[in-house]
Structures are given as structure tokens and as C-alpha cells.
């Protein structure tokens, strides 16, 4: 007999914060309720199987008009990879100029996501 489990989640896709319930039998999702958009349903399924997040940080910049550039993963990454990604990012330093959207690290920590700049930095 397969075990039936209920997960109660607060959706984080947008600020509405829908309360979504997922019913699982064993590893199978049998019912998702409470979402108001398809993205919410997708999030809930993801969250109970392999939760993902976008990771954000800043990295050091040499010779820039700002001392740092803000960065993020260009797609959500598995939550369990976040500490490893942060450790790798701490070692990264770039030279100005940096363009908004520029790829700083490809496939960081084998997550399948690139680290991209979210703020431009001019060279001084």
C-alpha cells in the first residue's frame, strides 16, 4: 500500500501568496489544489519534488565606478546546491566594465545555470 501525503505550501511565484495543497501517493502527485495560475501549480509540483530558487549575490569588481556588481542565477537552481554556489561566488572577482546581463560564470557548480550581472559597472 502506498502512503498518502499532504503538503501545504505558500506559493512564492508572485506576491499573492496562494495557499496550495499537494496530495501525493508514494512518489506520485495525485492532486494539486488552491493555485490561481498555471505557474503556481508548476511551482507546487516542483516544490514537493525538487525545490528550486534563484540565487542572488554581489561579487567584487576591479576598477569600476561601483566596488561590486550584483549577480543572479539566470534560472532557478536546486536548493541543495545553494551553499556550494555561494562558496564559489565568494572567490570570483571581475574587471570593469561589466554589462547588465553579462555572463560571469557559466554553469556554476554544475547547476545548469549561469551567473549573470544584474547591474552594469563602468570602468573608471
Amino acid at each position, binding site marked *: 500500500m502506498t502512503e498518502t501525503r499532504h503538503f501545504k*505550501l*505558500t*506559493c*512564492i*511565484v*508572485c*506576491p499573492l*501568496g496562494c495557499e496550495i495543497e499537494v496530495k501525493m501517493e508514494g512518489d506520485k502527485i495525485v492532486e494539486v489544489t488552491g493555485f490561481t495560475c498555471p505557474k503556481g501549480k508548476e511551482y507546487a509540483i516542483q516544490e514537493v519534488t525538487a525545490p528550486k*530558487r*534563484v*540565487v*542572488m*549575490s*554581489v561579487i*567584487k569588481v576591479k576598477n569600476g565606478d*561601483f*566596488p*561590486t556588481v*550584483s*549577480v*543572479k542565477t539566470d534560472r532557478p537552481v536546486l*536548493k541543495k546546491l*545553494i551553499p556550494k554556489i*555561494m562558496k564559489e561566488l*565568494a572567490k570570483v572577482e571581475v574587471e570593469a566594465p561589466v554589462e*547588465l546581463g553579462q555572463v560571469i560564470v557559466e554553469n556554476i557548480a554544475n547547476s545548469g545555470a549561469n551567473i549573470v550581472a*544584474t*547591474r*552594469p559597472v563602468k570602468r573608471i
Partner: protein
Amino acid sequence: MQNDYDVVVIGGGPAGLAAAIKAKEYGLRVLVIENRETLGGIPLQCVHPGFGLHYFKEDLTGTEFIYRFINKFLEMGIEYHTGAHVVSIEPFSDLEKRLTVVTSKGVLEITTTTIIYATGARERHPFEIGITGHRPAGVYTAGEAQTMMDIDGIMPGKEIVIVGSGDVGLIMARRFALEGAHVKAVIEIMPYPGGLMRNIVQCLQDFGIPLYLSHAVTRIEGTKRVEKVIVTKVDENLKPIPGTEKEIPCDTVIIAAGLVPYLKVLEKAGIIIDPATRGPVVNEYLETSIPGVFVAGNALVINDLVDYVVEQGELAAKGAYLYVQNKGIPTKKWKRIVKGRNIRLVTPHYISGDNDVILYARVQKPEEKVKLRFPEIDKEIKLPFVRPAEMLRIKLKKEELARAKDKITMEVVPHD
């Protein structure tokens, strides 16, 4: 004699940039005055996503969001001063306002027909929330810590206690945790969290950070650097309960106790302020009690979403355009927006009924299964829940407003 400008926008953050771009599109002569060295305002230091879901239908970081406006603003060649401080506004007549502006190049005297005041908010500080004790190093507001970490790349500390569970506090908790600091607790005086549920999940639960509801930091101790805080339970009147004190050792205290519209210069000019929003009393064009002075963004009301801030900036620009065209906002028989049951604040305060209007409101207390009711216009909206942390943005149509005579009440009532 013609004024130097049709509209001077004070503040180069999201509200100000959106207002300036819109005003320029209307063909007005625009000047933006920004007191920092760069345009962009607070989103420049917001490296987290969640910006622009409504406006651009995309999930952007604060930095990405604001650069869309900065780039457009610069492409349009709109005039601006950075590192410039407006020290006074003198409403000389309805059609002439005189500004005194201190810049690195000297003091400027500028005349303008209208003003859009978009200076954002200031942070509440420890003395406003009853924290006593020593005054060691290591006490920062959330915004200061954010500037240090995400602009300057400096960690303010290692063992962190955050005071306040609004979105700003929650987002900083996550930033500290991500960057390797130990966030020991988030302390919230109210019995419910101050921020959006999604931020409770992704900023606290993701990192196992404890949230203490109905607790207050009553004392900070430490000789040179913060050594610990004293946390006390509070009763239903938010008064600390003696005997419930406990110590949390830490080296850094982050004050995220909310924002207050920053209106210093407008207050000196004699603006009328709503004690609930702590922003100016405005009509549907976001015009204040001084004719031709408009307000937008967090200087108007503390918003949850930058998308609303931009929307207000664009509306204020429309107001300024109408003002310049008609030498004043055409006089209306204004209808009052009245706060009914479980409504803590609402803005704008006066509407004409000639236009569709967006109301921004907050409730006093959380409730489930309610309806939002406007009895004078027979409008009801069912909502699964309302929370003080989540601003209500309600559009009322012109046709609906026509049914009201002199006031429109907004109230939250239970439904079954």
C-alpha cells in the same frame, strides 16, 4: 514670465524616473533632482528578484528593473542634477513654485509650474521603537546594511538579530544567511508577520531562521560592539511582559521597523498630512493640498510593490500635464473616500467621479473569508483573506463612481 520648467521631479528613484519619462512624453519641460550621486534610488541596492511582475510581466531584480527606467530616461535626454538637495519649496503662486537647490556647483534658484515629489521613505530608527540600552557599534537600519553589503561589498557582522519582519527585514535575513552570516532570530512585535507570505517561506523557512512573533527587542547591550539583545514577550497592547526577558547573544542588530514617507521639505511648505498613511492628503491626480504639487511612490504611501510606485509616478505626471494645460486641476466636486470597518489607511482621499480611480489601502488586522464593500456604489469584492502586510489595490470604474453622491466608504466585512 515663463517658469524655468513645467515640472520639477524631486527624487530620481522609481517613482521619480517613471514620472519624468511620462511627463516628457506629454511634452512637458522636465527637470529631475536627485540627492544621491547616481540615479535609481533604492532599487539599485535591491539585488533580489520579485520586481516588475505586474509592470513588465517579468521577474526582475531591483537592479534590472531600475536600469530599464534609467536607460530610457537617459535616451530621452531628460535634464537632471545628481548630488543635488532641495532645501526649500516656496509656493509663490498657483502657477509658480520656487525651489532652492544646493548642488556641488552652487545654489540654484529654479521656478516651475508643478512639482512631483518622489523622495521615497525614511527608515524608522531604534529610538522610535522603544529600544533602550547602550549605544555600541553594530546597530544598523536594514537599508544601511543593504547599502554596505550590496553596493560596497562589506559584511556588517556575523551573528545577526533582525528587528521587524516586514519585507525589508525578511529580505535582509536571507541576504545575511546567503552570505554566510548566522541569523539568530527575526523579532516581530505584532502577533502576525509584517511581510508577504512568500518572503516568510523563501527568506526564513528556506534557511531555518526562527521568527519570534509578539516579541520586542527591549534592550541592546555591549560596551564597544553589540554583545547581546534582550528580547521580551509583549501583551495584546504591545507592552512588554515583565519576567519574560531572554538574552540572544549577537554582534549585529538590524532595525527593519518600517518606513515612513519622507516629506521634510513639503512639511516646511505647509502640506496637509494624513496621520494614517503619514503621506500627504491627495486627490485622484495625487495632487497635495498645495495646488500643483503632486506626490508619488513611498512619499505618498508605503507600497509593497515597485510596480505600484511606478504607476503612481505616471499618474502624477498626468496630473502635472493637466495642471499645466488648464492652469490648475479643473475644480471638481470632490467626493471623499471614507475608511470603514477594518481599513487602516487608504489613498487617494478625494476623487471626482469623472475618471477610473485606483485605491491603495491596507487593513488593520488579518481576516479570512471577507468581502471588500463600497456600500454607496453597491460594489463588493470577495477575498479569501486580507492581511495588513498586503496592500489592497482596487480599481473603481467611472460608471461605478457615478452612483456616489458625496462620499465612498471602503470597508471589510465577513461573508459566509
